[in-house]
């Protein structure tokens, strides 16, 4: 059962059997031809030994398929490097101490669910007193001063409020992602900041269940946080990043 991590494959019940489950709908009625179309589709997805194990007519000339197949494709796991927002996560006490020692004043953070997004629970989980999953939110940290603008905040207003609050960082939450509306909202914010030459003034962080650190970097943010993020992860990042920023400026 030795594993070659340079060429891993999916595992069903035998090492490297390459087994994968998939399901999808096709815009054709159920029947032998539909099933064959499903099989062909799976073959196009680089699967072999394709078995269409379930077919269901959905009406209106649509049909649903559950399929199993095997792939020969491999991934070199040893080469995978994932960018992480923080090198290490500190705890509540360590973070406050770190900021006190290195920056010497509380960090000022403004948060908002931008655009038409009204999902505040995620941002509240990070920012508010109560926090999330047993971890305090930033509001509770003596070394953070926070302003949570809540839901459906236009990007212009966020910038305005951030200037007013003299914020070091912005925390943006984007939960609705249908038709990539989050990408639109986030890009707009970066463009607005750049247009007003404010991009360097703020560390900008985005979070949400479909957000990854990579995506955030791609869109011009300083960090991104996804599903299940805990407040100390964000606080650690902010502490380290703003330490770099602030102490760089001063030098």
């Amino acid at each position, binding site marked *: 059962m030795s594993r070659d991590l340079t060429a891993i494959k999916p595992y069903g019940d035998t090492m490297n059997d390459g087994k994968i489950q998939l399901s999808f*709908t096709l815009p054709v009625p159920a029947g032998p031809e539909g099933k064959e179309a499903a099989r062909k589709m799976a073959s196009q997805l680089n699967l072999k030994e394709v078995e269409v194990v379930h077919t*269901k007519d*959905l*009406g209106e000339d649509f049909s649903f398929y559950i399929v199993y197949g095997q792939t020969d494709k491999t991934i070199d796991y040893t080469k995978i490097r994932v960018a992480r927002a923080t090198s290490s996560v500190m705890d509540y006490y360590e973070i406050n101490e770190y900021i006190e020692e290195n920056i010497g004043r509380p960090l000022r953070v403004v948060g908002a669910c931008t655009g038409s997004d*009204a999902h505040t629970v995620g941002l509240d989980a990070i920012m508010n007193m109560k926090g999330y999953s047993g971890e305090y939110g930033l509001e509770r940290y003596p070394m953070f001063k926070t302003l949570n603008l809540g839901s459906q905040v236009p990007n212009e207003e966020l910038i305005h409020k951030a200037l007013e609050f003299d914020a070091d960082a912005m925390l943006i939450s984007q939960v*609705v*992602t249908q*038709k990539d509306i989050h990408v639109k909202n986030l890009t707009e914010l970066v463009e607005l900041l750049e247009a007003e030459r404010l991009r360097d003034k703020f560390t900008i962080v985005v979070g949400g269940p479909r957000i990854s650190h990579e995506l955030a970097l791609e869109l011009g943010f300083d960090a991104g946080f996804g599903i299940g993020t805990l407040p100390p992860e964000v606080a650690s990042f902010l502490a380290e990043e703003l330490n770099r920023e602030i102490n760089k400026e001063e030098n």
Partner: protein
Amino acid sequence: MAKLDLDQNKVKRCRLASVKIADSVDNYIEGLTTTSVERTILRLYGVDGVNSEEIPVPNLIVDQLNKADLLEAGAAVRLGQALLSSQLTVEDLSEAIAENKLDIIKLINNSNLNSNKVKSYMRELASNRAKKIKAIREKRDELQQEYPPGPKPWLYVIVATGNIYEDVQQARAAARQGADIVAVIRSTAQSLLDYVPYGPTTEGFGGTYATQENFKIMREALDEVGQEEGRYIQLVNYCSGLCMPEIAAMGAIERLDMMLNDAMYGILFRDINMKRTFVDQYFSRLINAYAGIIINTGEDNYLTTADALSEAHTVVASQFINEELASRSQLPPELMGLGHAFEIDPTVKDGFLLEIAQAQLVRQLFPEAPLKYMPPTKYMTGDIFKGHLQDGMFNLTSIITGQGIQLLGMLTEAIHTPFMQDRALSLENAKYIFNNACNLGGEIQFKPDGKIQGRADKVLDETVEMLEEIAEKGLISALESGLFAGIERPRNGGKGKDGVIKKASDYYNPFAEIFRKELVASE
């Protein structure tokens, strides 16, 4: 049916408190109307269309009236003046205004008609329009005779592509798969638009715009597929937000069957002004009542943010308030789809027992209401397999406790708005459970001193306490102090406040008069 043993005295106290609470609301909005109510009146008369900037004619008229300080007497009278002095039909007048060919303020100011004459003309016109709505309601009754809807709990699914034509396809497919009810979810943020978009639309986010044309397109599609399947398929939309009563009017005209409509949702979840909301909800519900449309209240929303265990009583308290306010709009219990939800953290030991307790409590408190039961959403995750199971337990709770309107959970709730296959799997889920455990509720009894009974008692206790506290301090103060969903709303804040208008002493709304009179008579 398994029954809880509830202290009927406490139930009575809940209803008494609700009466007091509703009285205070009535007091609070005494003598007020809103721009949206007035636009609704115009729509009910048949005013429609948009100008070149896509601004709806009802908005054009009401805005001009408002600016000219002419709104206090009500849009009905002003429209009457304009119609009578221009000798135009409503349609021609609408068109002329849309094309900016006519100055309605001038028309009104030039009109020197006897006000009683105008009123009686508009009463006549309103009465004819009301007959049409009645005819639409009767048409529904006829169709439901011919193609009876499925048995309860009704299987309720949503479509939410943003594109009405994709929605139609998915709705038709869902009907084929057994759905009883299709709701077209609205695009995000429509609730904060102070006008109703126009025409068929294909671009929405997380949902499709509620427009009269979209209503018509979907109604036709569902009538057709319902006829083919031999089962009347009910159509749902939202009369909620800044255009609450306008959408009620559109729904009445396009034969929608249900409307999301809550007395407090807008205040709490959309930060809409309290007066605006309370005035709008009254008239919108009167329309729903007249059109025979079932409302769906929004108490489930409390539990998507607040904790389903500690806040369960707020749901029940809100249901009592919604019930009392709805009945003041002449809505009979059969049209009160009071909302609640299956939102207890699935890792809670014996959580399923607590869900049963809650669902059964509500069932017994509102025995005639077609309760709207919402699925797990908050604790759904990307684990679609587990999610499907959570939805199954939700369906089981519903069939045990005899819910009315079953909003099907989707295994992909935490991921995306439903794919066609997600909906198909959910329908399969509910059909399996409803059939396989069909009479379970009638087969079992709850232990008299057990956890289920105990939980129900506790929630009822907390409900009485909360309602009596609100009755004491007034609903407005309660909303200010964050008693519901932990959300605090200042009395004078909120969107749409500008739209609240003091009625003049000669204010006249013939539709309210007609609807109320007929509804009271038919009781």
